[in-house]
């Protein structure tokens, strides 16, 4: 009698947490308006840090989805890429200490900063992923989004943990 070992391995190459984050990131694009100069060209999501599964998932998403008329482009790096003006910057947990630097570099330029470490929505990110009751949730700081140069309504408030 053999275990269904292959079955689990097949599914293991799929990371549910990465899929959820990808879906969240895609949804965020519906709640913000980027500056006019960023409404052409590719819609860039910049990941700072290393998460192979998330990177794969986002690239899969980019192959099937776009934001309005803009194609999705996923960029990954371990440091700030000065040559890029991303629409979304996702600062992975391991790169959290770069938040201050990113905020000063991109302030008012129209980059939505997303983080995933406790307390960062108060410390400067517009959106911060948190885990509650074994589910992915997010904190939302509208002031930080506005400071980043984005227009937004209150649509996210009812779906997020609002941080003032």
């Amino acid at each position, binding site marked *: *009698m053999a275990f269904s070992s292959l*079955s*689990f391995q097949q*599914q*293991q190459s799929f990371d549910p947490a990465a899929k*959820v984050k990808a879906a969240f990131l895609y949804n965020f694009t519906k709640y913000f308006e980027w500056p006019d100069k960023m409404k052409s060209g590719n819609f860039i999501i910049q990941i700072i840090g290393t998460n192979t599964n998330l990177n794969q998932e986002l690239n899969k998403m980019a192959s099937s*989805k776009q934001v309005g008329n803009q194609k999705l482009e996923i960029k990954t790096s371990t440091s700030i890429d000065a040559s890029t003006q991303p629409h979304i910057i996702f600062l992975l947990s391991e790169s959290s200490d770069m938040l201050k630097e990113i905020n000063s570099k991109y302030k008012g330029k129209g980059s939505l900063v997303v983080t995933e470490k406790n307390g960062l929505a108060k410390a400067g990110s517009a959106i911060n992923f948190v885990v509650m009751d*074994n589910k992915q949730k997010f904190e939302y700081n509208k002031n930080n989004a506005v400071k980043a140069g984005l227009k937004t309504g209150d649509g996210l408030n009812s779906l997020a943990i609002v941080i003032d």
Partner: protein
Amino acid sequence: MLSFSKSYHYLKSCICFLLIFVWHNQYAQTDLFFDAQRLCNEKKFDEALPIIEKIIIHPETKNDPASWHIRSFAYIQTFKQSLLSATDKIYLLDTAMYSALRSMKLDTAKAYIENNNSFIKNGASSYYKLSIILLQDSLNSVKSEQYYLNYKKYTSIFDPSFDFKQKDINYFNTTGSTFEDLYMRNNFNQKYGDIAKYALLKVLDIDSQNISANINLGILYYNQGATLMRMMDYDVDLAQLDVIQENAKKLFKQSLPFMIKVYQLDPKAEKALESLQGIYSALLDDEKANEFKQKKEALNKK
């Protein structure tokens, strides 16, 4: 009008004819039995069967254990001549078993006990083989279990003290892993997942510490949760995303006790360590996921 002598002669002729008819009929039945026996010996079962069907309904032979015994033999041989996988011929096996049981019941002198037991044993074995063959055919899982129950029923007749525990575990574990594979290969079809779950839970009813069933159930629940996530569109609205997460979380949590059980039974089972890492990761419990990742790595270093 007939004269007395004519009437007497006529009556005598009638009685005579009746006696000849009765005697011949009785003789004919015996004759039929020998014909059937001869045809069976010559392995001409197709020709023997219609004759046997006459024997078992005739008043003189219908209560004779020999009639039902030869019927069982002929049907079981005919069944054997057909492909085992030809399930439309299963009535042959059913008839053979019914006939052997009838013969046993009538056989108060126990003249056929050995052969009848042998037929029953043979038939039980055929039911078992069929039950396993049918597992490969996803449409016939219900029939498979029915034949497995027939196997148990007839085995109990020739061996009343037979302990089916291990056989049950093997059968339901095979069913479980077969349908779990079908579930994976058929785009996570829920129907197959449910059959696998039913079979594996049956194993745990018999033996709650069965490693194979525990690990397969853990994997099954995990995969069902992961499937909900996999099927989700990136475009799903945030409220719906929360509902999907909640449903997947329930399934991941259901998989946990099975995998923890495997880990408790065998702390060095790499599969359990790897699976627990995956389940905790899906539950976004990084600390626990990391704990099992490290345990797995430590195991591999040894």
